[in-house]
C-alpha cells in the first residue's frame, strides 16, 4: 500500500502571486524547520537532544520525558517487528493517553501505517474502517475492545489485537516489556512511506481513508515551525482528540523546538484555563466550536493571568474575535487546514492586529498555492466565491482503495477541497462554506457557517446548527437548530428575537425560515463538528414537530 501510484497532484502550476498581495513575512527558508527525511528521525533526534525534558504532560499530571518516551516507542516497535511489515495497516482506537503516541511511532518505525478510528466509534463506523483498511493488527483500549472484537473478522489479515490495559503509561508494557528495542536512529523508513490514514467524515458517501506520508507530515511541521517561532519555554496545549492528526503534529513540532505538549483528556470549558495555568501552556491549537464554547464559560482570573501568547484556530468565529482578544489577551490566528492539504492558509503574524474580526483566514504560506475556481475549474474574479483548489508539494497521497475518487478530487493536478472560499484584492482568503453545505435559496447561495456564526454570537445561545430544508417554491430554505444556554428557553429567547438579532448582521435572504429549539447537546462528528447528517435524517418532515415557521409566525406540531 505504500507503493501508491502518482496521485496526479504534481501537475499544479506555481501560480505567480501579484506583487500587491500580502505575504507571510520573516519566514525562514523552506526545510529549515525540519531538515529531516522522516518523522522517526524527528523523534530520535528530538529525544536524544534533551532527554530529561518532558515531551508530553497529560492534564492529570502524568509526565513523560523524551528519554522515557523514546525507550517506550523503541520497545513497542521491537514488539511489532515481524508482526507488522512494510505497508501493513494497523487500526488504533484509543482515548487521549500516552500509549496512543507510543503506538503511532512504534507502527511507523516498522514502516507500517496507523489507521485511526475514533475511540467512540461503534460497530458500524469501526467496521467500515476495518473492512476497508484490512489491518493486520488492532490496538485498542479496554472500552473499545468489545467493538474491535465484534468487527475483527471483517479483516481477513487481522492477526493481533493489542489491548492497552493497566496504569498509564504502562498500558503496552505487557507486550513490549521484554521486546528487543528497535533502534530509531537506524530505522529504515522512507520519506514516501504512507504512515497514517485518517477517515474523513464526508457529507455524503462512506468515509474515505486519507493517506498521509512522511513528506506530508514534514511539510506541515516545517511550515508551522517556520511561521511561528517557539522555544524551550514553550508548551503547546492540545485540547483535541489524539486520533486526529493535530495532536501528533503538536507533539512533533514540540520535539523539533525543544518544547513540551500539554494534553487534555478531552476538551472541557470548566477545566481549560486551570490546565493552561497549572502546566504553563504558552500556545493553543483549536478547531470547531472551541472558542465559542470558551466564550460561553464564566469569566475567571486564570483566563487572563497565563502565559499563552498565541492561539491557532481553524474556522474562527469573526463575531467573537475582538471579544476573544480582549478577554484572553492574545491573538487567535485564523487558519485554513485539512487532512488532504495540511496547512493551507493562515493569518500572517505581522498583520494580526489589523485583521482582527475581518473573518479572513489569511493567505498561503510560502510554497502553498490556492486557486478559487467555478464549476468548470476556471479561476473566478477577485471577490467572487468559488471552490478552493490546493497545489504544492507533499499533499496527501490519495484515498485508500478509491483511485477514481482520488483522480476526481485531484483532476488537473490540483486538490479540489470542496470548500467555497473567496479572495480579496490583497490576496487574503475568506471561508464561505462547504460546497455541500451551501444552501441554495431562490438562486442565492447562503453559507450555513455564516448564519451559524451570527447565531452563536448571541449571549443566550450555547450551540447552533443550520441546514437546508427542501422547499417547493424556493428550492431550499434555511433551518436553524438552537440550543439555548442553561436557564434559557424558547420563551425567554423567542423566535422573533432570534430573527431580529440575525437581521442586524445578515442580508434578509439569509434569515432562517425555520427554527427548532433543542435542550440536548448535538451529536458531533469525531472532529467535534455538529453531526448534521443526523439532523437531516432525524425526521421525515423537517418543517414539523415543534418547528417555528417565520412565514406563519407560529410553531407547527
Amino acid at each position, binding site marked *: 500500500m505504500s507503493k501508491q501510484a502518482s496521485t496526479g497532484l504534481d501537475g499544479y502550476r506555481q501560480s505567480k502571486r501579484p506583487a500587491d498581495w500580502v505575504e507571510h513575512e520573516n519566514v525562514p527558508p523552506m526545510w529549515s524547520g525540519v531538515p529531516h527525511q522522516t518523522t522517526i528521525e524527528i523523534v530520535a533526534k528530538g529525544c536524544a537532544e534533551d532527554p530529561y525534558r518532558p515531551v508530553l504532560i497529560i492534564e492529570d499530571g502524568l509526565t513523560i520525558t523524551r528519554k522515557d518516551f523514546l525507550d517506550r516507542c523503541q520497545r513497542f516497535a521491537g514488539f511489532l517487528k515481524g508482526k507488522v511489515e512494510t505497508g501493513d495497516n494497523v487500526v488504533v482506537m484509543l482515548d487521549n493517553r500516552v500509549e496512543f503516541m507510543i503506538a503511532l511511532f512504534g507502527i511507523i518505525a516498522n514502516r507500517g501505517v496507523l489507521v485511526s478510528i475514533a475511540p467512540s466509534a461503534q460497530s458500524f463506523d469501526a467496521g467500515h474502517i476495518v473492512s476497508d483498511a484490512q489491518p493486520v493488527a488492532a490496538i485498542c483500549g479496554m472500552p473499545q475492545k468489545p467493538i474491535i472484537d465484534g468487527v475483527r473478522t471483517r479483516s481477513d489479515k487481522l492477526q493481533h489485537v493489542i489491548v492497552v490495559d493497566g496504569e498509564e503509561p504502562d498500558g503496552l508494557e505487557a507486550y513490549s516489556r521484554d521486546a528487543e528495542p528497535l533502534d530509531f536512529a537506524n530505522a529504515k523508513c522512507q520519506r514516501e512511506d504512507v504512515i497514517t490514514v485518517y477517515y474523513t467524515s464526508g457529507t455524503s458517501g462512506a468515509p474515505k481513508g486519507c493517506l498521509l506520508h512522511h513528506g506530508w507530515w514534514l511539510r506541515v511541521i516545517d511550515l508551522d515551525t517556520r511561521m511561528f*517561532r517557539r522555544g524551550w519555554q514553550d508548551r503547546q496545549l492540545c485540547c483535541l482528540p489524539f486520533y486526529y492528526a493535530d495532536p501528533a503534529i503538536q507533539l512533533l513540532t514540540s520535539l523539533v523546538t525543544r518544547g513540551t505538549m500539554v494534553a487534555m483528556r478531552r476538551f472541557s470549558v470548566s477545566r481549560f484555563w486551570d490546565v493552561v495555568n497549572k502546566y504553563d501552556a504558552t500556545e493553543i491549537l483549536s478547531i470547531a466550536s472551541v472558542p465559542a464554547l470558551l466564550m460561553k464559560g464564566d469569566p475567571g482570573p486564570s483566563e487572563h493571568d497565563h*502565559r499563552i501568547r498565541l492561539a491557532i484556530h481553524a474556522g474562527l468565529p469573526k463575531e467573537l474575535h475582538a471579544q476573544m482578544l480582549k478577554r484572553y489577551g492574545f491573538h487567535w490566528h485564523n487558519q485554513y487546514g485539512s487532512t488532504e492539504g495540511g496547512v493551507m492558509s493562515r493569518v500572517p503574524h505581522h498583520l494580526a492586529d489589523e485583521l482582527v474580526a475581518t473573518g479572513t483566514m489569511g493567505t498561503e504560506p510560502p510554497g502553498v498555492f490556492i486557486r478559487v475556481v467555478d464549476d468548470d475549474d476556471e479561476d473566478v474574479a477577485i471577490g467572487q466565491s468559488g471552490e478552493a483548489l490546493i497545489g504544492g508539494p507533499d499533499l496527501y497521497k490519495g484515498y485508500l482503495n478509491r483511485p477514481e475518487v482520488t483522480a476526481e478530487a485531484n483532476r488537473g493536478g490540483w486538490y479540489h477541497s470542496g470548500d467555497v472560499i473567496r479572495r480579496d484584492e490583497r490576496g487574503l482568503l475568506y471561508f464561505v462554506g462547504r460546497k455541500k453545505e451551501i444552501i441554495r435559496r431562490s438562486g442565492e447561495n447562503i453559507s450555513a457557517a455564516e448564519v451559524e456564526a451570527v447565531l452563536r454570537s448571541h449571549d443566550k445561545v450555547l450551540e447552533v446548527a443550520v441546514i437546508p430544508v427542501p422547499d417547493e417554491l424556493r428550492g431550499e430554505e434555511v433551518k436553524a437548530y438552537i440550543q439555548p444556554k442553561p436557564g434559557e428557553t424558547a420563551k425567554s429567547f423567542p423566535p422573533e428575537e432570534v430573527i431580529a438579532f440575525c437581521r442586524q448582521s445578515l442580508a434578509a435572504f439569509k434569515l432562517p425560515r425555520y427554527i427548532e429549539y433543542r435542550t440536548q447537546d448535538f451529536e458531533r462528528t469525531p472532529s467535534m463538528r455538529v453531526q448534521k447528517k443526523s439532523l437531516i435524517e432525524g425526521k421525515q418532515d423537517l418543517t414539523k414537530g415543534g418547528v417555528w415557521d417565520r412565514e406563519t409566525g407560529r410553531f407547527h406540531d
Partner: protein
Amino acid sequence: MGVDVGKVGLERDSEEFRVSTARLAQFAEALGDTIEAQRKGRVAHPVFHHVPVMQSMVELLKSATTKFALHGEHDFHFHRAIEPGQRLYTVSKLIGIRPTKAGATLIIRSDIATHDELKVSTQYSTCLVTSEKFAKAAGDPAPDRPVMTPEGEGEPVTIKLSPDQAFRYAEAARDYSPYTLDTEAAGELGFPAPILHGMCTMGIAARAVLGAACQGDARKLFRLGGRFSAPVLMVPGQLLTTRVWFGAVRGARRLVAFETTEMGGELAIKLGFAEVGA
C-alpha cells in the same frame, strides 16, 4: 580549535516570554522560597531573570564552541522586578572571549526588556571551557565585580536540600541538563553524582541576601552575582550555608557580600556580591 573567536559579537534573540502568577509561584516554590510576595507569584524571585535568558545564552555558547561550557560566574543587574502580565524579550550577545589558565572564558551579555521597551535586567554570564589555550583576548570583559573584604563570621543561613531539589528546579526553570538529573550523565563530565544547577544554588543564596539585606523585597535588590566555584553534588543530606556581610553605603546603595558553602565545606559560590537599597 574548540572555541571560535570569530563568533565574538554574535547576537541571538528569544521569542516572547509572557509572565504569569502561576509560573512565578512555581519558581518560588521550587526554591523553597519563604517570601510571601514571591510565593504568591506577585513578584519574581530575582534569579527568575535567568529563565528567559537561558536559551539564547546556550545557543550562543553552542555556536562558539562544541565543547562543554561550564557556567562559571554570573552577574545580574536588575532594572525592575519581573511581574505577572509582563511580556519579555531577550537579546543575548557574545561580547568577549578571554584566555585563562584553565582554558577560555566566554562572556555573554543578555538584556531583557518588556514589549513596551522598559529595561528589565542586564546579565553577564561567564562560561568556562577547559583545555583551551589562547594567545589573545577578543571583545570585552565582563564588568568588574564590586570589591569588598568580609569581616567577621557573617550571618549564616543554612538550608537543607530535599533529594528532589534538582528535579524541582529543572521543572521550574525548564532547565533539564542531564548532569543535574542523571548520575550517568554527571559521571561522563567527571562528577560522582548529579550536580545542582548553579542558578538554583544562586537562588537559594539569594533568599539569604533578600532576607538579611532587602527586608524580603526583590525590588530593593539592584545587583547580584558571584562565582560558581565548586559543584553542589546532589547527595543525601546535602545542605547549603550562606553567610552575608554588610559593606559600605555608596549613594543610595549598600554593598553586600555573601558566600555559600556546601555540606563538605567547599565554597559553592565565592566572591558573592549584591547591591541593595540603602
